[in-house]
């Protein structure tokens, strides 16, 4: 078995690392409270020229068609910096995702193509006040009325809804079938009468996901993606890839940078006449982070590689996410403790890694839920 990064991806990895070191990490000090608009535009143009846009989009659609393994390496490298908020991907071009990339015909022209061109901005709306971990408890209804669906319901904690041009909305089209074949994914323009972003929830990581209320919002039937009842399958594809890349690989990048900062600080900070790095307790913290990072990286890359082989990765994506996000938070927490007082100040980047990482143990499948699925797998196969 060869576990090393394939030859053809090594140059890519180096390129992304250089980009992060040169362009992003310095901004952590020069623009610490968020990137200036001019900086965001400059970086977005730069990444386009570097070929970092549309990594997950097939070449036939104008994307890079990068393998999942390649994408996992990208997300690991990109996540070494906290210059951007954790879910703000503006500077790496349009965010497409597994659902939109499947659109055909008129839907493709009206929704996918404008996103690919960077003209329109999507969001993904599944979570509701009563349906987080249990998406089957969803209540948002889409009722057929002639050529339209009439949508009523409330979505909560929807990232970027306030900026989005349209939403991929998960709604119940068949209440009798419910979770089993009764949920559909419908494209909804955010300026549709009856669609309103009512609140934004400020969070510990500095982001403000939205509440979106649908009140008798009439949406053309032709905005249905796939068939009625396809909703969960589509959502599953979106979430599975996200778990490996934006949770799993991300966490590895976080841990890598936390190791860099922790080791560097420990070597340079002198107390009682000796650098912190001389203390065994500090050494063991670094050793633990390094060891756990290797384990997480293997889990993530293995899951990514399996997708590239066309294999089912339901369990692998669960354990890759579950293990990596917890690993990443431990890495950030140890790094914070190594830095002492300066690790606590908002002037310095350490606490941002800590605050940004914590939510990943909850969003898009809490660690407990991951364990439920893995347990089912174990009890079925052992």
């Amino acid at each position, binding site marked *: 078995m060869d576990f090393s990064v394939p030859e053809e991806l090594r140059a890519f990895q180096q390129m992304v690392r250089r980009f992060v070191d040169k362009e992003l990490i310095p901004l952590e000090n020069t623009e610490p409270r968020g990137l200036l608009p001019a900086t965001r535009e400059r970086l977005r143009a730069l990444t386009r020229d570097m070929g970092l846009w549309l990594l997950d989009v097939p070449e036939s659609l104008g994307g890079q068609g990068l393998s999942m393994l390649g994408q996992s390496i990208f997300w690991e490298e990109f996540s070494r910096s906290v210059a951007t908020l954790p879910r703000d991907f503006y500077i790496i071009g349009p965010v497409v995702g597994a659902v939109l990339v499947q659109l055909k015909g008129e839907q493709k022209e009206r929704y996918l193509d404008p996103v690919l061109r960077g003209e329109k901005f999507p969001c993904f709306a599944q979570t509701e006040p009563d349906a987080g971990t249990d998406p089957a408890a969803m209540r948002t209804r889409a009722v057929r009325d002639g050529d339209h669906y009439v949508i009523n319901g409330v979505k909560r904690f929807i990232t970027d809804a306030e900026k989005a041009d349209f939403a991929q909305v998960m709604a119940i089209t068949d209440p009798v079938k419910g979770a089993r074949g009764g949920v559909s994914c419908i494209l909804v323009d955010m300026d549709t009468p009856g669609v309103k972003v009512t609140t934004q*929830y400020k969070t510990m990581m500095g982001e403000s996901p939205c509440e979106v209320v649908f009140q008798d919002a009439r949406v053309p039937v032709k905005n249905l993606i796939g068939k009625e009842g396809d909703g969960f399958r589509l959502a599953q594809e979106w979430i599975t890839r996200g778990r490996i890349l934006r949770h799993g690989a991300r966490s590895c990048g976080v841990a890598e940078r936390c190791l860099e900062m922790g080791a560097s600080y420990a070597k340079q900070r002198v107390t009682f006449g000796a650098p912190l790095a001389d203390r065994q307790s500090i050494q063991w913290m670094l050793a633990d982070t390094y060891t756990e990072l290797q384990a997480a990286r293997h889990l993530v890359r293995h899951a990514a590689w399996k997708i590239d082989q066309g294999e089912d990765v339901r369990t692998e994506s669960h354990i890759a996410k579950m293990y990596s996000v917890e690993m990443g938070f431990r890495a950030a927490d140890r790094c914070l403790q190594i830095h002492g007082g300066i690790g606590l100040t*908002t002037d310095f980047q350490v606490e941002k890694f800590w605050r940004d990482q914590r939510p990943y143990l909850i969003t898009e499948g809490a660690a407990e839920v991951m364990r439920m699925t893995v347990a089912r797998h174990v009890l079925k196969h052992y």
Partner: protein
Amino acid sequence: MFEPELNDQQRLIQESARKLAEKHFKPGAARADREHAPPVGNIKVLAEHGFCGMALPEAYGGSDLGVFEMVLVIEQVARACANTAMLLSCTEGATARAILQVGSEAQKSKYLPKFARGESLAAWSMSEANAGSDVGAIETRAVRDGEHYVVNGTKLWCSFASVADLYLVLMRLDPVPGMKGIGALLVERDTPGFTIGKRIDLIGLRATGMSELLFEDCRVPAENLIIPAGGIGKILSVLDADRIGGNPPICLGVAGAAFDAAVRHLKDRSQFGKPLADNQGLQWKLADMAIDIEAGRSLLYRAAQRADMHKNSMADAPMVKTFVNEMAIRVTNQAIQLAGASGLAEDFPFERHFRDVRGMAIGYGTTELLRNTVAREILAGRYLP
């Protein structure tokens, strides 16, 4: 002998602190954190009910109560508002105790009664950019000049800086290196040459008014000397007083608040057609949190009672602080997890509780430093379980 039950007086004190805090301090707690605004009005309320400086002697306006009673009150206040508990603890924390223990009669009569009346807040300033755990590395310099000391330097991480009017500042009084040269002066707020620097924002306890202190040829009256050069060893015990009576009860109170909120959430919230509380995995998390809190409470209460009997070993304070800090981090972290996405939102208290306790494992003595102390006591044969 460890008496686990509270006597009637202690129970009354605890109950009235809890009611006061719940009514007056809890409603404003989230806003104080969001706006980084120290809730100094709450000190007046506490003073009116006799809770300020309660561990100070009656002769100076206190109630002669013990560390144990102080722990009971601070814990209850922290359950409602951690920032208020921090402000309260500074009316009888390290600075007040140092003045009580080694201050001149003039200093005691001048400052202590004001703490007890809630009219004055005291800050303790030790840390600098190059001196955190390593107090002997302090660089702020005080040079005697006639009836004054002339002070130059910058202090960092000074809690209560923006709301205090009296500062006990550790500085180098003799040009000898290490701890031998370190002593302390009492600096009043409006002393020329002394400025409160920019606000320091931390992850948590954001409303304690933390800032830098800047000294530029600041002339402090010589009579404000409180700790002579090399005398710091005598009052390290006041730091231990904070390590039992200041920091841990705040952690314990916040952990309790987070725990209560988590239990409520598990009962109220349903998924998959049943309350979250019906899931064994989550039930066990609650059980582990409760066991953790009780262990911390036992360790803390016992050490506080021993403090009042003047029977603390050198290992007591570091053991208490280390365990209670890490317990509070575990419990508040778990409470966020149990609350799901709501645990991440500022509208709920979970993430604030976690942020508030995280720094407690670094301030007042890092858990690393404290573990070194415990190990030293063990290996020297002075700690026997």
